[in-house]
């Protein structure tokens, strides 16, 4: 029974990630999809190799996708309003700062995810001789 429940949770997380990608493509923009894909690639290839259950890591990945989607949705809405109000120049500035704004959530979420994982088995002692 527990085995099946675990699988259901995994499927749910996969669905959340897929949904985030579809929603970002449909309702935000293609750049958001690319950013989420880069985030997913780094997360799965690096953090998935660390200690911790697959459920926990996949859960964090799904959470990262949700945060990324909302973050981009908010800024995208802001850009649409800004573009209508200030004109083309706002769009250019938005393009310039857009990746910087995205890096803010990616880097912060990256460090928080690592902190949420169980301690590494063969970890080095804290910086004390």
């Amino acid at each position, binding site marked *: 029974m527990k085995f099946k429940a675990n699988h259901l949770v995994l499927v749910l997380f996969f669905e959340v990630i897929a949904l985030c990608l579809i929603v970002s493509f449909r309702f935000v923009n293609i750049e958001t999809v*690319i*950013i989420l894909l880069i985030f997913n690639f*780094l997360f799965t*290839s*690096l*953090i998935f*190799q*660390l200690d911790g259950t697959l459920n926990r890591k996949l859960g964090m990945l799904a959470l990262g996708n949700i945060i990324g989607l909302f973050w981009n949705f908010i800024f995208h809405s802001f850009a649409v309003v800004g573009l209508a109000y200030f004109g083309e*120049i706002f769009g*250019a500035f938005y*393009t*310039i700062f857009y*990746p*910087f704004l*995205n*890096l*803010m959530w990616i*880097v*912060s979420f*990256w*460090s*928080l995810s*690592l*902190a949420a*994982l169980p*301690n*590494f088995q*063969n*970890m*080095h*002692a*804290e*910086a*004390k*001789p």
Partner: protein
Amino acid sequence: MIIEALEVSFVLLTALMIVYLIRHYVFTLTVLRSLKKTKKVTVASDAKYEPMVSILIPARDEEKVVGRLLQRMTELTYPKDKLQVIVIDDASSDSTGRIADEYSSRHSFIEVLHRDKRDGGKGKTSAMNAGFTRSKGEIILCFDADYYPQKTIVEKLTKEFVDPKVGAVQGRVVVLNEPQNIVTRLVALERIGGYRVDQEARDNLGLIVQFGGTVGGFKRNVLESLNGWDESILAEDTDLTFRVVLAGFKVRYVGDAECYEEAVDNWKAYRSQRYRWARGHMQCCFKHQLKVLKSKNLNMKEKIDGLLLLNVYFMPIIVLLSFVVGVPLILLESSKLITALWFSVPVSLYSFVGNFAPFFEVGIGAYLDGRTKTQLLIPLLIFTFFYNIPICTKAFLDLVSAKILRKDHNIWVKTPHSGNGNRYITN
């Protein structure tokens, strides 16, 4: 025409940044994969290999820290009859020499080489060469005065020299005064990226491990054949790394040979230290770049990584240039390719801090070290990178103007040590 030229420049600059990002991604992946493999047991680690070892400790005005290092030297587990510790009191104006003399009078294996203001005070390389002339060991190890090594560090470092191809070794640097303030915490993160991942991966991949100038050493015959330290170079560590590998020897990284350093604890000292590193590293780049390309002792992957390593201090300048070139292109609504490549600029901002490790690499390194609190500071690393941009740009401009005016005189600005690390030593 101008726009096309700007576009080509932007594509080239971002391509270079992406190459560095891929390099560090491969490094991170290599370290993670190596965790799953069992470590190979070499003959070197099993054999009883105890050659005569000379430890050089250059010290100028280090009265606040030199005592703890010398005390540690007396606690080393390596046989004292095979150990020679030489403190090079390099024209100190404080009581560094007196403290060293006190230890020397109580321990026969500790010697002090006093240099007056006429001979000394010319920088670390000059002091090292003076110490090297006095040394007798088959292996020469170096420790800066503000460092605090493990008791077993000599055994761990020397065992690698059983391999005749190994010319130099490098141990791991860990920040001692990490909890002191935000500067030391960020420096600690940089060190984690540089040593826990970069150096380890280079060693695993058979690339060029960088000798860091301290917590490492050389075979005497290798150092003699290279005529010791080059006093015209500020980054003597990088210079020696490349001279050793160009001569056909390997540099090995020994991750479990840890030594604790007192990191700079304020932004002014940080700037001064990084300026020296950047300028020295750029000097090495000009000196060794062509030799690396032409070398018959290096294979293709070593050449590629060697060139990337030599050029690493140009990266903050390249990121700045890509920003300067990219912004007008986006404002002029250039091609889609430019907009797509633009994403590499902010990623690079998080990628070339201190020891030039990207955020994902520093994060993994901090996790593997069990630094759960420190890794939460990773987002702040962007500030150290912003700080590195003017430092590296100034170092480059100063170096170029010095070369044009033929006034390339090195002024060694010593990093001051407050001794604050002493309070973090628990045994």
